[in-house]
């Protein structure tokens, strides 16, 4: 899958700090210090100088414990919140020459709605539970304000729900009435609606029981193979990472401590934290 093409997504020195910050924040936090709260100023270093490339068709995993900063990276890359410092370039936006974070909020909204798709861990973040499943998917198709055609939207919504193995006859049921696994499928259909180049998955199966987890993961993997969409998968679950990803970053206390091919990392972990992580898999 790795190829010599130019990257779809190029992230350079992405850092995000919450609360106060001082000049010693970077020095006094991190895996060696065992904390991501700066003892000097009390600010939180959620992630620090994270850089990576994501190539077209590639699936990149970010693994790490709770609070390691992996979801923060995803939120920044989904343009939900701005990073403290850092740059990101998307090959679909001005040929990858413009830093996404410097764009106007209108442009960000447009990119978010046409080039990106996200699946959150909890459905209430990604779905409007008071709307039907169909409406949730249709919302992404209705983003361009030019007069849409109802029947066409309806048809495309049905075909998307079909794609994620949802019974199409349930299209008009409230998404709040669905089971967790179904809700994740609706989220997936919603994320895929505008045929995005990049799919962001934030712990897509963490709230589900194992059998449902397996079927949703199968679905994600097969959709990825069929459409060739690039994915960034955040998970604390090495099983998910093993099943879905080609390459992996391991994060701890806001820093990337190890990176490489997923198989390599799982078979021959180098960093003590990764070793601990691999050894602790039940």
């Amino acid at each position, binding site marked *: 899958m790795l190829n010599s093409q130019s990257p779809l997504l190029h992230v350079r020195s992405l850092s995000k700090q919450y609360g106060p910050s001082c000049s010693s924040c970077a020095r006094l936090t991190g895996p060696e210090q065992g904390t991501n709260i700066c003892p000097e100023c009390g600010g939180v270093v959620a992630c620090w100088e994270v850089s990576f490339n994501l190539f077209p068709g590639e699936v990149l995993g970010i693994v790490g414990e709770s609070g390691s900063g992996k979801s923060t990276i995803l939120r920044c890359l989904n343009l939900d919140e701005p990073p403290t410092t850092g740059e990101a370039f998307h090959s679909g936006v001005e040929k990858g020459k413009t830093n996404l974070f410097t764009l106007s909020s209108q442009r960000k909204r447009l990119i978010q709605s046409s080039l990106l798709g996200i699946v959150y861990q909890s459905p209430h973040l990604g779905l409007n539970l008071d709307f039907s499943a169909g409406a949730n998917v*249709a919302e992404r198709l*209705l983003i361009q304000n030019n007069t849409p055609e109802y029947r066409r939207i309806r048809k495309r919504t049905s075909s998307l729900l079909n794609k994620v193995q949802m019974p199409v006859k349930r299209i*008009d049921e409230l998404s709040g009435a669905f089971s967790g696994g179904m809700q994740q499928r609706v989220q997936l259909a919603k994320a895929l609606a505008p045929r995005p180049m990049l799919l962001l998955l934030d712990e897509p199966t963490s709230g589900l029981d194992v059998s449902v987890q397996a079927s949703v993961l199968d679905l994600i993997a097969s959709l990825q193979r069929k459409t060739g969409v690039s994915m960034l998968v955040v998970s604390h679950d090495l099983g998910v990472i093993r099943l879905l990803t080609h390459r992996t970053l391991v994060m701890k206390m806001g820093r990337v401590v190890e990176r490489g091919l997923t198989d390599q990392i799982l078979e021959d972990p180098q960093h003590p934290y990764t070793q601990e992580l691999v050894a602790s898999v039940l």
Partner: protein
Amino acid sequence: MAERLQALLGQKGNCRHYTFAYLDESAKREIRRRTLKAVAIPGHQIPFASREIPIARGWGTGGLQLTMSLIGPEDVLKVIDQGCDGSVNAVNLRRLATLTTGCRTTTRTSDATLIQTRHRIPETPLTRGQIIIFQVPYPEILRFVEPRETVTRRMHAEGAYHRMWTFLYENVVQWGRITIGFRYPVMVHGRYLMDPSPIPRWDIPKLDQSPALMLFGAGREKRIYAVPPFTKVEPLAFKDIPFEVEHQAGARCSRCGAADVFLDEIPDEESGRIRWVCSDTDYCDQRLAARGESHRA
């Protein structure tokens, strides 16, 4: 009816203890500045410092403040409430305006320079130079789909109206058509989604390319917005499910016989039958007058 109103209002301009048009000069100036800004950004809501006036919030204070800030001694004012010049609310607002300005009033749409209205646009087409002022209870059209003001403001800023579209989609899924009867969402100049105030769908097409300046005032919510003359105003609708105005097949006004107007439904308790009359009383009176029949209130 016009004579009766004149008699009722009687002593013009006898409230000398008040400033002209009740509001103090700085208040009027502030409202005019906001209005200018609103005209410059069609459909965009401008906050203003809604003043206390001797009318309860929610009874047309926004519209009245706009009227008071714009009215001059030469103006001819018309005030309607759901199309009617003679309803209590309209009479009271008109009386306050005449007592504090001494300006002339009229019920004839074509004679008025300023028209303050609640929930209707007159049937008689408005003309260049006229100003129509709407009383607005809820200025935020996105309140249908989002309760937080901070979020709706950002949605307007980013032109992100997909939630409203989704609302319409869901409406069609449930009912097979768009069921919004009043406060129908309209896109102004292809940029801002606007609440046209609770006018019926019948009046929505009159907003588009109107020769008259249209101002909207929400006193309780402290917002002013505007549609300048000859501005494109389109109701949101799907290509294959177009916008439609109300239509009662076969219904005619029982006074003047008009069919192509917005009609009020009046049930007759004794006979159990339904009667229709023009919602715009002036339009109805004008039609009767043209036929030489006497006015009936």
